[in-house]
C-alpha cells in the first residue's frame, strides 16, 4: 500500500534562516507531488506541484522553492525565512488523477 512521509512534524526557525522540508512517497511510481500551505481561516493554498523528476510548477510567487531530485521525493526550501512563511505545510501525492493523499504536515513557526 502507498504511504507518504513528511518531516519534521514541527519546526521553529529564526527569521533569515534556511528551510528544508522533505516528503517521500512509498508504494507507487511516478506520482504527482504537491506542497500546500494551510493558514488559519484561509483554507489550503497550493504552492508547488510536480509531475516528474525535475519538473516543478509554482502556483504563487513567494519566498519558497521546491525540488524533486528523485521520483518519490519532494523538497520544499527557502534560503531566508520570513515571518510570513509561518504556517502548516502539507505534502500530497496522486497518481492518474487529480485527487490527492496527504502527509501529516509540518507546523513551521518563524520567530
Amino acid at each position, binding site marked *: 500500500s502507498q504511504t507518504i512521509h*513528511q518531516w519534521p512534524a514541527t519546526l521553529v526557525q529564526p527569521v533569515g534562516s534556511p528551510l528544508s522540508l522533505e516528503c517521500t512517497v512509498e508504494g507507487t511510481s511516478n506520482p*504527482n507531488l*504537491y506542497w500546500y500551505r494551510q493558514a488559519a*481561516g*484561509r*483554507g*489550503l493554498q*497550493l504552492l508547488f*506541484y510536480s*509531475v516528474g523528476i525535475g519538473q516543478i*510548477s509554482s*502556483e504563487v510567487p513567494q519566498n519558497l522553492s521546491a525540488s524533486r531530485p528523485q521520483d518519490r521525493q519532494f523538497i520544499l526550501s527557502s534560503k531566508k525565512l520570513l515571518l510570513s512563511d509561518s504556517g*502548516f505545510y*502539507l505534502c*500530497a501525492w*496522486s497518481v492518474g*488523477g*487529480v*485527487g*490527492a*493523499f*496527504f*502527509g*501529516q*504536515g509540518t*507546523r513551521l513557526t518563524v520567530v
Partner: protein
Amino acid sequence: SQELEQSPQSLIVQEGKNLTINCTSSKTLYGLYWYKQKYGEGLIFLMMLQKGGEEKSHEKITAKLDEKKQQSSLHITASQPSHAGIYLCGADMGSNYKLTFGKGTLLTVNP
C-alpha cells in the same frame, strides 16, 4: 472571490444529531473530494465524487454531487464525538493536476 464556497464555517451539534455541510462551486466540477482533518494533522481522504447525481456512503457519512456538478453535500447521520474535526472539500475544476479547496467547516459534537 472564492471559487469554492463551503458552508457553514463552523457547526456545533449535540451527539446523535444529523448535520449537513455544503460545498458550492461557481464552475462545473470534474471531481469533488471530501477530507477530514484533526487540528494540526494531515487530511484524511473520505470520498471522491465525479458523476452528476452520484452518491457515496461510508459508515454514517454520505456525500452527494448534484446533477449540474456544481454543488456537493456531506451528511452525517447520528453524529458522534469522533466525527468532530475540520471537513474540507477539494474540487478538480479542470485545471490539470491540482485541487481547489474550500476554507473548511469546523465541526464540534457535544456529548
